[in-house]
């Protein structure tokens, strides 16, 4: 039995703007085990990234705020920590990889300096020890000839190699939890395949728990053990990856899976979901997917569906689910 490393309970993160309250994340719960990859999939503005930023307590201020809920990392509720205490967790216990390696690296520092910064800050190492740690982080991400690379600048590297460097920074302090926010979206297909294989290997070696945020079901299928599907600030379905693809229970999940063209068969016509996601400032009453749902019932437009468990590790928020 593996140990739960992160438990999120009824998390609500709102943005308070002049025009009104944006309910970016509105009551989500999930857990992540040690050594597990947990996927969060959804379209833009469904709350994936805000979930990640909430866990790191990095919501943009002023405006962004965790309104309620618990984020328990290895027994500590991160929501209750002071800013100073939280700083000890970031980088050391939890780290993050962002989508675009062009903007997440500093162009005027060498690769070595950028990894060393995190090693000095979080592990308190000095002198030769720092360089050793930097090299071991580069080795972990299988970056060729690390002794040479650490004196290079980001512009001297390709996109795939830069994203490995970002991975090396994130893994340099051997965190317990890694949040990867669309880490391969900016990469080419063959490089993406390399990167994903690399991360599976890193996970095997370090037993790190990964939260993998993406909009791509192909990536989910290859990387994740369990998945949560988000829509308009809520998790509509959570299941093991196998279950989710084999027997999706929420109409949004099955619509999403069916609207992606497949390479292994010729589709006559793609299934398409009409309309667009609702504004997070002006949510419909009842189920948030009801206005676009092909199998909507009267109750869906009036009451929010509760989350119901339907078998091992599979839960769904839909009035139709049994």
């Amino acid at each position: 039995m593996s140990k739960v490393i992160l438990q999120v309970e009824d998390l609500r993160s709102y943005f308070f703007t002049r025009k009104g309250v944006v309910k970016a994340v509105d009551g989500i719960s999930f857990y992540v085990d040690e050594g597990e990859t947990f996927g969060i999939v959804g379209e833009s503005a469904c709350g994936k990234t805000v979930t990640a930023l909430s866990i790191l307590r990095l919501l943009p201020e002023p405006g962004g705020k965790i309104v309620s809920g618990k984020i328990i990392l290895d027994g500590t509720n991160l929501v209750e920590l002071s800013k100073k205490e939280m700083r000890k967790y970031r980088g050391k216990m939890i780290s993050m990889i962002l989508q675009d390696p062009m903007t997440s690296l500093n162009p005027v520092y060498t690769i070595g300096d950028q990894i060393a910064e995190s090693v000095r800050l979080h592990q308190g190492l000095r002198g030769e020890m720092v360089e050793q740690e930097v090299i071991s982080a580069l080795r972990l991400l299988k970056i060729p000839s690390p002794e040479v690379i650490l004196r290079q600048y980001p512009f001297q590297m390709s996109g795939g190699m830069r994203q490995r460097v970002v991975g090396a920074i994130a893994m340099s302090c051997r965190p317990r939890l890694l949040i990867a926010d669309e880490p391969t979206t900016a990469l080419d297909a063959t490089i993406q395949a390399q990167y994903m294989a690399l991360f599976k290997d890193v996970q095997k070696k370090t037993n790190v728990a990964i939260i993998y945020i993406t909009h791509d079901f192909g990536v989910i299928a290859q990387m994740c053990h369990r998945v949560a599907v988000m829509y308009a600030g809520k998790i509509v379905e959570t299941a093991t990856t196998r279950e989710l693809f084999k027997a999706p229970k929420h109409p949004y999940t099955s619509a999403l899976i069916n609207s992606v063209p497949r390479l292994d068969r010729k589709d006559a016509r793609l299934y398409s979901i009409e309309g667009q996601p609702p504004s997070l400032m002006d949510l419909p009453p009842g189920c948030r997917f009801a206005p676009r749902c092909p199998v909507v019932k009267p109750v869906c437009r009036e009451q929010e569906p509760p989350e119901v468990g339907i078998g091992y590790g599979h839960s769904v928020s839909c009035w139709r689910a049994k």
Partner: protein
Amino acid sequence: MEDVLLEGRDLKKYYPVTKGLLQRTVGWVRAVDGVSFKVERGKTLGLVGESGAGKTTTAKAILLLERLTSGNILFEGKDLYQFSQSQLKTEYRPRVQSVQQNPWSSMNPRMRVRDIVAEPLVVNTKQSKKQNQSRVLELLEQVGLNSGHAELYPHEFSGGQRQRIAVARALALNPSLVVLDEPVSALDVSIRAQIMNLLKDLQEQYNLSYLVIAHNLATVRYMSYNVAIMYLGQIVEYGEAEELFKRPLHPYTRALMSASLLTLPEDDGQGTEQIILSGEMPSPLNPPSGCRFHTRCTEAAPKCSQEVPPLRNVGGGHEVACLRV
């Protein structure tokens, strides 16, 4: 009998690399290096490849946004470079339109939708304002928008709706060919299907030809009749989409397919093993000798680094450039 609308013959585009005070040319970036293809009337040709493969340069050459280093483009059998400027303006440009990848940067934010869609009509026809406006409303309806949208500005629309506006603008002059450069990659998953279905419906309705550029194989398979797989400025495999995806022959095509196949967890172990290429695409400034793919190929033989593989027909119009096939 195939009815060819546009044909590219041995297209080459080299960009000079200059150095020093006198801007001496010290090398060439071979962005497109000997590419030939045909776009049939009413059908779609898909160009697939990773960044730097030369897809967009090929599209730019067709749209006459780049002058080729060598090669010919034939439109309905006539060589474009023999056209005079005025002929191009009346006989070619209005009939070849494009839709760009990013609907946030392809429209002037200060223009209303009705003016954006009417722009090609204003430039290319002598119709009255009234005629233009009724045509705009007709176009908006065709792409699934309504007359109320005509008075709005681009920022008032979502990405999918903006891409619909871009499609309406491209159709304004009743073109024969529309170049679609990554038409859905900037959109959300649930919106992509809407736009792809719309494009297919319009194609059927108006017998349009499309040149679709995409890096996503599944998108291309869904959209295209013919497919060309590009690597480092060259076509490595070409054929009808059905045939090519059922029987991929080039190792690069197979690796690409393996990388983008939706492998379900239950296929573990029994499905085809994933091919993971090592290394990255070499620089087009100094492409490898012989087969350009041999540095990353899982099946490379010694001869691959010496001999340049020609694009050979292996039956049924399926062409492949590999010495080992």
